[in-house]
């Protein structure tokens, strides 16, 4: 009977959609997102460009245009040397990171290596921790006065290695960036490549190792190129690793040079700083252009997923245990020992092979840490800033991603380019740019002196990171789902709000936690932005290092390690969110 009534009603004629709207909400929202993103991305870049071509600090009233900054850079032997050092360091660290990352991705993602799950988790730790902490761990254990170096030196009569060198620096940076290469290769290739491609190679006569070499590895090329480009940017921008490991050996990279000239010097040469930032951006930008060029023949790597493809696990056979032992040893030496070293150092008044550790155990480092109001402030500030900017960052990222992927907005290409532009801008320069912008752009002035300025910088700098989590999640959601919402009467804004955002919840949570961790550990961006009362953990730790307060620094680092570990565990247990999964 229901049929009959319905039929009757239907005959009543078709109702058009919900009442027509007087203005186009969707266009308005899209333009808003575009404008916010554009100003966020351009506001810091423009002042830097301006600073390059003027003769004194932006905040001076009487600057004039000049090209001498650029000329100085071009002519300076020292900067040439520094740029070369930076390039060499970046190159080798990327090589090390990629070799380790690719190896780990293949071993963990494709073989029956015993304990691969645990090892995969351990491998991720350098990514969760900042370079500052990781470099500290290496210094404490393997530096010239490191516990292990000295243990060997006391026996052998000389230090077995010199961590304070370009090689040492590349090694530490390489290891700390290996997880990124690993992730890209694992998820971009090893896990997503149709495994029938490998099966096919087996059936035409390739053994397991030949399959890896001839099929799996070539298909990883795009992931390798992409992660190499990212790692290159990170190597160029990293500060703490060269600061801790190269400065003592009087080696400068662009980042330590910027730090020394822009921060530590008594009368910073802003023109030079801006010009060398520009140099840095050019270096990084050209790497990304090369990446683009390399990936042009994209279809040669695209694989269509067939139905019923099950990841095939390669058996290592008799090599299983020796490989596991080797891989485990590398992780132990490269990751576990440095982290353990920090924690050990935090609980001792000093760490020396000359005296038993038990005799120097102390709580003093933590007492000093918590005895200082500024440190407490740094912790609360950091948590506050991280929460706020992770929240805002996630919100902006999802808005941008939805406009890019799910709207008919005219400038999606431009928007995407803008949103990803921070990838080519090293963090220190983002900070510098926001600092300059706050000085000369009136609307940003009110951000000065409160955490707003850091939130702005963090949101900007980590937008690509959040997009990296959210965009793939959007791709997974069929376009038909939001189209369907449009056909039942939702406009663009409603269809995004009612359908896409709820479906993206897990990705949003993942992005939030990822951003939170990154903001928690970040220090480079904040260097130029901290102000009285605005301390953040990373920068405080950096100045503890400069003052030589290694014990207190280790205590601080331990605290940060514990915070991040707790966060990751809670998010995994409570929200079932595994970042990078």
């Amino acid at each position, binding site marked *: 009977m229901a049929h009959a009534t319905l039929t009757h009603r*239907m005959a009543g004629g078709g109702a058009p959609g919900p009442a027509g709207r007087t203005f186009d909400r969707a266009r308005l929202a899209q333009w808003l997102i575009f404008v916010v993103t554009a100003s966020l991305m351009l506001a810091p870049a423009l002042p830097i460009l301006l600073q390059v071509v003027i003769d004194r600090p932006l905040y001076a009233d009487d600057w004039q245009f000049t090209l001498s900054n650029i000329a100085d850079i071009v002519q300076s032997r020292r900067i040439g040397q520094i740029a070369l050092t930076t390039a060499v360091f970046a190159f080798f660290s990327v090589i090390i990171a990629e070799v380790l990352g690719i190896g780990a991705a293949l071993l963990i993602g494709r073989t029956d290596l015993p304990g691969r799950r645990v090892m995969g988790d351990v491998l991720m730790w350098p990514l969760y921790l900042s370079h500052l902490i990781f470099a500290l761990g290496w210094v404490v254990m393997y530096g010239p006065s490191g516990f292990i170096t000295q243990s060997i030196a006391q026996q052998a009569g000389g230090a077995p290695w010199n961590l304070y060198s370009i090689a040492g620096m590349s090694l530490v940076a390489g290891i700390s960036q290996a997880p990124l290469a690993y992730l890209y290769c694992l998820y971009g290739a090893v896990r997503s490549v149709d495994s029938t491609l490998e099966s096919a190679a087996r059936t035409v006569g390739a053994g397991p190792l030949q399959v890896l070499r001839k099929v799996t590895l070539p298909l990883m090329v795009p992931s390798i190129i992409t992660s190499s480009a990212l790692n290159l940017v990170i190597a160029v921008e990293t500060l703490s690793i060269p600061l801790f490991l190269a400065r003592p050996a009087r080696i400068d990279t662009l980042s330590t040079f910027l730090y020394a000239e822009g921060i530590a010097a008594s009368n910073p040469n802003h023109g030079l700083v801006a010009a060398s930032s520009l140099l840095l951006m050019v270096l990084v930008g050209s790497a990304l252009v090369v990446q683009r060029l390399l990936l042009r023949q994209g279809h040669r790597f695209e694989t269509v997923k067939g139905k019923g493809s099950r990841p095939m696990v390669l058996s290592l056979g008799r090599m299983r245990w020796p490989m596991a032992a080797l891989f485990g040893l590398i992780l132990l030496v490269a990751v576990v020992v440095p982290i353990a070293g920090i924690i050990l150092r935090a609980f001792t008044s000093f760490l020396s092979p000359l005296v038993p550790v038990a005799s120097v155990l102390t709580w003093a480092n933590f007492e000093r840490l918590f005895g200082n109001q500024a440190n407490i402030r740094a912790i609360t500030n950091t948590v506050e800033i991280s929460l706020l900017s992770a929240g805002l960052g996630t919100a902006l990222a999802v808005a941008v991603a939805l406009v890019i992927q799910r709207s008919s907005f005219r400038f999606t290409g431009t928007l995407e380019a803008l949103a990803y532009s921070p990838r080519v801008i090293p963090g220190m320069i983002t900070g510098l740019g926001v600092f300059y912008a706050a000085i000369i752009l009136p609307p940003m002035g009110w951000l000065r002196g409160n955490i707003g300025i850091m939130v702005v910088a963090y949101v900007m700098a980590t937008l690509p990171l959040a997009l990296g989590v959210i965009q793939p999640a959007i791709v997974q959601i069929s376009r038909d789902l939001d189209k369907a919402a449009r*056909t039942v*009467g*939702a406009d*663009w804004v409603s269809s995004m709000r009612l359908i896409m955002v709820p479906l993206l919840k897990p990705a949003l949570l993942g992005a939030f936690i990822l951003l939170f961790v990154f903001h928690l550990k970040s220090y480079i961006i904040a260097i130029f932005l901290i102000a009285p009362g605005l301390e953040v953990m990373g920068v405080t730790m950096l100045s503890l290092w400069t003052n030589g307060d290694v014990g207190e620094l280790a205590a601080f680092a331990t605290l940060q390690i514990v915070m991040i570990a707790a966060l990751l565990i809670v998010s995994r247990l409570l929200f079932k969110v595994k970042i990078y999964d």
Partner: protein
Amino acid sequence: MTELVLTNVSRRYGAALAIDRVSLSVEDGEFLTLLGPSGCGKSTTLSAIAGLDHPTGGRITFGDRVLFDAETGAFLPPEARGFGVVFQSYALWPHLSVEDNVGMSLKLRKVPAVERRRRIAETLELVELGQLAKRYPGELSGGQQQRVALARAIVFRPPLLLLDEPLSNLDAQLRQQARSWLKDIQRELGLTTIYVTHDQDEALAMSDRIVVMRGGKVVQLGTPQQIYTDPIHPFAASFIGNANLLEVTGPPSDTSGPCEVRLADGQVVRARTPHAGLPEGAQLLAIRPHLISCTAVAEASEVKVTFGPESYLGDHFEQEAQVAGMTLRLSLEAPQPRGAGRIWIRAQDAVVFAATT
């Protein structure tokens, strides 16, 4: 009455035309099917009607409302058109229960909760899913999901229902059931429906009229019978009913009607042409496999062929035969011995088209 009219609608992707000056009109209460091979532009046409895609040329009107007009730049967004759409993938919202999926359109139209609940229940009853209102899409079978998708598309009483291969995800058995069930509901509600499929049986069985498409163009528009028995284009003949197409030569013909064509080896076949104005020279001869006889038939042209390999298909055999260097498919009760043989073709079963189209 309200009537949907497409006039020269085109959609260009870069250099490629996905649809090329498609014109058609749909009457009130009609069941119109867009039929054609993959990539011929069926979904593009449907999206243009629904407002999910922005065509690059032409004009679409519905009753007296202009939905799209390339000249004036008018474009009504999908939510303002208010047509019901069923997607091939169903596109059910996985985070909403069945009733919330169905009720979304009413919520957006601010229908009061009581009325809303009543109409959801009524519609779910109609698609025989009353029991499953609280379930989530992930907990339903393919057939049930398809019903939810239909319920969602009709609950707000759209003046036009658009279906894009709604049955293609179902397996063969379920598909046949769903086909007649869907047709029943359409009849019962008198819904004007545009249906997209590449399955000729589906199109023949369900439609009031069929639009045969190919390469973005409309090839033929007519009732199932018209199209099956009187294809006006060799593609329509071969796509619907699997006609063999043979290259032949023949004299020009000013009117439609009987004619004679010559195979490359000189054999002559009596046939008919549906076209007035058949040009001289290269022509195409279309013959359906099951209309070819291997026993003598009165009034039929006799053709010498060489029988090739046959395939067993249960209730009949399919056999190939070579004639004048071309391959002919035959549908036979019993296979013929391989080698030289003869077939008979009746003039009314052999249709001649111009070769160049």
